């Protein structure tokens, strides 16, 4: 019982610390107050590298907007929130950003698990949340009013993979029929399998092998051999970076060269993938949200590269675009009031380029949030026109090869692996 006294002491110190921690009260709006956007990504922990790329796109867009006068004269201020890749932390950070820092909108997150919990928090406080990165389908099935998704969801990624195969088959005059799937047992791996079963019949293709493995596997020989045995026309894959490298090396060891490999980004689009698989990954294709050789966004990427020393990647291009969407919503709403900004987002229709802003640099030309249906499930407030591009590794570099109208390079077919 006596130790309870010390607990009392601790509780007092604890609350004092928390109170001291943050009490940024929002002042009355006088027309020059910054508009605050909370950006929630993993800035530390295993996903920090991804968070860094995302934040570069965010900072780059904010700088561009503030240079040209901000939103009706008000600058945009980004309040960073580090989710540490942990849902508990994500919830805590969202509540702090909204109630202590007084952000007017939230951009985030990366992992869909965290995005879903943050979406609930935003719903409760009537603060709009826009995600530029989270792709898991079910995020948009809960009927959240304040949650918007700019990026394509997983089923669109997979449908785009199938469209690519169909277009490729038509162009070559030899239709692609037999598909193998190679995916891990994680959340997104399961999504690929689920979506492939929806779209394969639609595109007249047959799944001849469905190979699952545990993420972090030390050997993938038997998995590769079972794909080889099924002899597919194309392999669709989804792997984290270590597994992607191991898969590619195992293909080389086994001397198996599938004519087409299309990965659903992730590990295959990781900056360390190509250096780790010199030569042997040539010919492998992957979904990309954006690529430096895309015919769009060249000037913006040049300025970006000058500032950061690297090209934009898919995530930076997406977060760049998302900030412009929020800017336009604040402008059109004429206020920072949550429900009004939410209505502005719901009514927004951007074609070609943002008002007083850059063109849409992603592979699509129009942004409008609306309801859609995929395989009998209804989704709300997704970007109706979102799509991805497909790039192929040629001479150790990703070259955009699809859709044909935004690409500048011919597909290597069959893939050469050298």
């Amino acid at each position: 019982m006596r130790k309870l006294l010390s607990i009392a002491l601790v509780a007092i110190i604890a609350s004092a610390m928390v109170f001291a921690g943050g009490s940024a009260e929002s002042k009355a709006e006088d027309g020059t107050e910054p508009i605050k956007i909370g950006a929630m990504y993993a800035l530390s922990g295993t996903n920090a590298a991804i968070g860094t790329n995302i934040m570069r796109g965010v900072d780059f867009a904010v700088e561009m907007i503030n240079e040209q006068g901000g939103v009706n004269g008000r600058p945009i201020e980004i309040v960073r929130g580090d989710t540490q890749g942990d849902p508990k932390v994500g919830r805590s950070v969202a509540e702090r950003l909204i109630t202590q820092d007084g952000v007017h909108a939230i951009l985030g997150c990366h992992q869909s698990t965290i995005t879903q919990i943050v979406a609930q928090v935003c719903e409760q406080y009537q603060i709009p949340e826009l995600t530029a990165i989270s792709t898991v389908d079910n995020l948009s099935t809960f009927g959240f009013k304040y949650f918007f998704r700019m990026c394509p969801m997983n089923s669109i990624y997979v449908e785009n993979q199938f469209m690519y195969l169909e277009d490729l088959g038509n162009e070559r005059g030899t239709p692609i029929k037999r598909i193998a799937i190679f995916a891990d047992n994680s959340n997104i791996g399961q999504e690929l399998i689920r979506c492939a079963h929806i779209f394969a019949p639609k595109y007249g293709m047959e799944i001849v092998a469905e190979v699952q493995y545990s993420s972090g596997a030390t050997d993938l020989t038997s998995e590769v051999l079972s794909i080889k045995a099924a002899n597919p026309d194309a392999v669709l894959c989804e792997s984290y970076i270590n597994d992607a490298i191991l898969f590619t090396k195992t293909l080389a060891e086994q001397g198996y060269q599938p004519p087409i490999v299309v990965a659903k980004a992730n590990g295959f689009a990781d900056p360390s993938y190509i250096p780790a698989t010199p030569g042997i990954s040539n010919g492998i294709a992957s979904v990309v949200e954006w690529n430096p050789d895309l015919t769009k966004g060249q000037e913006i990427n040049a300025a970006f590269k000058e500032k950061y020393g690297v090209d934009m990647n898919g995530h930076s291009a997406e977060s760049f675009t998302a900030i412009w969407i929020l800017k336009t919503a604040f402008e059109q709403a004429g206020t920072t009031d949550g429900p009004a900004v939410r209505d502005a987002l719901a009514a927004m229709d951007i074609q070609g380029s943002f008002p007083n802003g850059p063109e849409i640099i992603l592979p699509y030309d129009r942004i409008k949030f609306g309801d859609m249906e995929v395989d009998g499930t209804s989704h709300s407030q997704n970007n109706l026109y979102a799509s991805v591009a497909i790039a192929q590794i040629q001479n150790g570099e990703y070259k955009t090869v699809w859709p044909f109208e935004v690409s500048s390079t011919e597909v290597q077919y069959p893939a050469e692996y050298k």
Partner: protein
Amino acid sequence: MKVSKLTPYKIRKRIAIALLLVLLIALPLMLSNKPYIMNVFILIFYTSTMSMAWNLLGGMTGQNSLGHAAYMGLGAYVAALFVTKAGMNPWLSMLLSMLIVGGLAGVIFYPCFLLKGPYFTLVSIAFGETIRQFVINWDFAGKATGISLPFGAESFAEFRFMGKAPYYYIGLAMIIGVYLVMRKISRSKFGFALRTIREDEDVASAIGIKPMRYKVYALIVSSMIAAMVGSFYAYYNRYIDPDLMLQSYSVEFVLPAIVGGAAFVEGPLVGGAILITLSEFLRNEFGAILPGINLILYAVVLLVVIRFRPVGLLGWFSTSKLKNFLETKVLKKSEADEEI
């Protein structure tokens, strides 16, 4: 307890405890426009409760489990499945989840306690990972996609609230309830048996305590509390996925007990309050400026405590001048008040 035994010191001590309780109960009224701080308190409540559950095994019985996140995750899953698939009342589901997880842990671990030494720790890690892999591959439980609990209107029966205050009070009731149970256990024959087992199993057997039976009982109680916290977590966050059972989260429940003082029933409470507040504070202050620095500072604090106060903060406090000062000067303890 007879009233005549109450010396002025004891009365003052009770007043102090009553004041603390009143403060905790009144806090939501003062913090109604600070939901973030309420969230920190809720975090402290359920993390400390989990840590008390761990401490029953780790601190009192000397069986260091590194798989408590799995019991908690399993509890969350069982409760969430009953709610979403069977449409069962969440309170009832919580109770069922406690029984199922407690029973399952008892059955699985019964043979493991035949082993002595660090084997329990190893098995607890393996058990946690096995459960996680099982759930990841279990279609009915949504595989790696997890389970979302239904949204809807506020309802006590449905364990669903818009504001933080109800969760705060439920969390508070949980931590106080579990604390009282732990205190009771600690002073009972059961508690003395567990501590005897911790010190020397052979001696315990020699004096008629069956180590095996007591260890299994302790594990069952501990995992039942973990299942309760897991259900609370699921209802509070309304979304769970198998990552909840990651082994790294198990460590989060060990630390409060170690830092607070694993030998004390109150250790996890002190440790939980300090560590959660510290990690939130560090992230708020430094997380945005230099990402990751908050984790480094957190680790430094842990290292310092473990290096210089290996008995935990309470172990240090109970022999410190501060405690002496509080007791003799503030509460005017007299010779007659020596505790038993």
